């Protein structure tokens, strides 16, 4: 049986590996990722080659990070249906395949860049970094809570799925979709009910240990010379890639 919770956990495990990118300060990584996203989103849909420099830069990042590229590429692919749908609509309306293709390419490259950032930055450091670059503390707290509660839901969902599989063992005929949906919606209601209870338990435990609405970290961020050099290098590379995209028009 495949454990679906493994996917989110793996991303967290990856973020705790060691590489040149892993060792960089979270704020620096966030800034360079933002710069990259701005460069990608502002790349004009002039030709299919326009996104090659950004893709090549991302490939370098993947190589330096030491993360499994195929697994990251597959995870980023999760977002493909959305831009594909909007790209298709846009193609139908404007009869411009290049524009539709650019929409998909932009979304996929951006998703991959964000995944790379999360894959090389442990979540607590990432949240500290967001606070460090001036993202409002309330927003960061909401994000932290969201991540934590998503983990809770995934955890409960996995257990419920296991329990269901143990009692069902796939014997239920697939054609009985109505019954399947009824069961799924019931299970979903139970899942949210149980997740809510767990979230309440976690919250109580946090309050009991001094939580006042602001997550603190035992690893205070410190920017080193190497971080600044990385930011300069990454910034220049991103600008270079953006210029190349312009040349390819």
């Amino acid at each position, binding site marked *: 049986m495949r454990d679906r919770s493994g996917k989110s*956990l793996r991303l967290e495990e990856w973020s*705790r590996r060691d590489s040149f990118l892993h060792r960089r300060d979270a704020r620096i990584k966030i800034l360079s990722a933002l710069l990259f996203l701005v460069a990608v989103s502002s790349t004009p849909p002039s030709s299919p080659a326009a996104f090659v420099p950004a893709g090549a830069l991302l490939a370098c990042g993947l190589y330096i990070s030491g993360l499994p590229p195929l697994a990251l590429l597959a995870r980023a692919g999760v977002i493909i249906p959305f831009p594909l749908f909007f790209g298709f609509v846009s193609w139908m309306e404007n009869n411009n395949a290049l524009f539709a293709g650019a929409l998909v390419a932009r979304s996929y490259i951006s998703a991959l860049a964000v995944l790379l950032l999360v894959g090389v930055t442990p979540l607590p450091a990432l949240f500290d970094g967001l606070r460090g670059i001036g993202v409002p503390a309330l927003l960061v707290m909401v994000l932290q809570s969201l991540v934590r509660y998503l983990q809770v839901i995934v*955890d409960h969902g996995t257990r419920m799925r296991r329990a269901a599989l143990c009692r069902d063992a796939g014997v239920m005929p697939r054609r009985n979709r109505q019954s399947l949906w009824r069961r799924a919606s019931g299970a979903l209601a139970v899942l949210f009910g149980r997740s809510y209870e767990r979230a309440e338990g976690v919250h*109580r*435990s946090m309050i009991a*240990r*001094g939580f006042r609405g602001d997550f603190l970290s*035992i690893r205070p961020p410190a920017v080193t010379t190497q971080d600044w050099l990385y930011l300069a290098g990454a910034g220049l590379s991103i600008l270079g890639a953006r210029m190349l995209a312009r040349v390819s028009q």
Partner: protein
Amino acid sequence: MSLPAIDVQKLCYTYPDGTPALRGVDFQVAAGESVALLGANGSGKTTFLLHLAGLLRGEGEIRIGGVTLEDETLGAIRRSVGYVFQDSDDQLFMPTVLEDVAFGPLHRGVDASESIRRARDILATLGISHLEERAPYHLSAGEKKRACLAGVLVMKPDVLIFDEPTTFLDPPGQNELARLLIELPQAKLIATHDVYFARKVATRAAFFLAGRIAGDGPVEAIADRFHWRLS
């Protein structure tokens, strides 16, 4: 005469859905004393314990180490009460054991390096230093329980509260936990269904029945009086 570690007078609580959970509980625990809370599921043990940490607020008076629990003293009370929850997964929410154990001191104003030092000390005391970089969800039930205990002990509380501490633990794990609890000098309140465990770690037991304390005395006597054993 020293102040009782826990002093509760006429504590009442009704859940928002109208279910009465506590119906006038009077209860005291002396400094350094270990008391087991026995009673059926739903008899009010956990609700009572949540009140002691200020996580639920009912009617009546609660004093911890002589300090009355009210809005102004809530922070101080929570600093002096260490709560080990029944489900370790509720308590372990940080990405690594070290970060989880350091969470308490860090969020009570201790700086990061000192929080790490204290966390490492307590992990060493409990013999789980090797787990410090592990993700809590990868630990065994016994390891999780010890990590939870570390997360509470690191805050040096005066009162320790354990809600069903033997849940998910195998017999060696229970023995190990009992050994650890016996060595702790704080006043301890342990809600449990396990009379053998209660007898090991506590000298006194209070029996909860429908939101009231129906009996209070030596563990053996209370277990006999309420037929609280496997037959």
